[in-house]
């Protein structure tokens, strides 16, 4: 891992080799990551084994849940190939939005896509009768904002 640039205290670039751990599920970091080059695998441990939740590419961001909700890392992140990340500390997030306002737009758009994808997946599961109807309805109501978690 080679530090490539320190521009501000709250924002810097970092290089990761293929397979290097960026963070582990349960970690308490609050940084937000933007992929400047390479790709990142997001995985989660389940009773059935480790599952890949996403493969983020150049330009994508991740780590937003920990930043926005102050939660421990929900999943693990590992570099997929040589990867360079722009790392934003929590204090740098608003400054980034001020300097690069379309980033906020893209973040909201991504989060909106993810909510829709979750809803669609949930409805798909419901169609296949793999979950009780009332449980699906409850989850959708939470995702849709009907009840604050």
């Amino acid at each position, binding site marked *: 891992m080679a530090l490539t640039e320190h521009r501000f205290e709250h924002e810097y670039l970092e290089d990761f080799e293929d397979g290097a751990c960026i963070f582990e599920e349960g970690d308490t970091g609050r940084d937000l990551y933007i992929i400047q080059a390479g790709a990142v695998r997001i995985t989660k441990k389940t009773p059935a084994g480790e599952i890949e939740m996403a493969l983020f590419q*150049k330009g994508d961001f991740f780590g937003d849940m920990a930043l926005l909700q102050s939660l421990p890392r929900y999943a693990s992140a590992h570099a997929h190939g040589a990867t360079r990340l*722009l790392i934003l500390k929590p204090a740098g997030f608003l400054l980034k939005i001020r300097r*690069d306002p*379309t*980033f906020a737009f893209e973040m909201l758009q991504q989060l909106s896509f993810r909510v829709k994808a979750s809803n669609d997946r949930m409805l798909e599961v419901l169609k296949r009768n793999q979950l009780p109807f009332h449980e699906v309805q409850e989850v959708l109501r939470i995702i849709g904002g009907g009840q604050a978690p």
Partner: protein
Amino acid sequence: MITTIRSERLVVISDLHLGNPFSNAKKKVLPFLRWAAQERFDVCINGDGLEIAQASFAKVAFEVPEFFRVLGDFKRAGREVYYVTGNHDIALEHFLEDWGVMKVSPFLNVHSGETRIRIEHGHIYDPFFVKHPALYETLTHFGGYLLKLNPALYKLWISFERFTSRMRARKTGILGEKPEFREAALELSRRGFDAIVLGHTHHPGENTLETGSLYLNSGSWMLTPHFVKIDSGKVTLEEWRAPEKRPFLS
């Protein structure tokens, strides 16, 4: 709203200001669009394609329908038309979308080959527009009256901007531009964009950023017919010249 697209062949033009008393962009842009369709390029109009702030209604009525007809032909030829809104046409956003010919967006992230390109008009990086929006709008309207009196004042203004840019201590950007535009491009490049294409300033040019990414401005067709060509990930700034007509007997 679509903000991410893939296009292997795309041309970007900006600041046509069709309807503006000074603009004679239509004469050149119609054959350019026909050429682009023939060469199988998609097209992106990167803001201020139409003029609202300094418009002459008679000029709009004369120029815009034909422009839209050619865009319609372009679309029917199987090519895509993208329109990124600028500060002079922001009020037309819904109108343009409802027309059905083009996809309207506040900015575009383009994937071409292995390259990732941001196309954005750039007015939100103009410090005067951001800090004093009401004054900016008033002065823009006032400028419209001056242009009606003497359209050559526009050229004088552009020369003045180039002069002040030469006098500036920091000379790292595109000639004629305020440094804030290059700084914005640098900020965007840190998010993994290999090239950033802005318009708005009417100063065509290109510049390599500290991140290694390329910053380009597609200029304005009110002055010179510059365009940014994206071809399988290669991004270049070019000036359009109509293909020479073949002699009748050759």
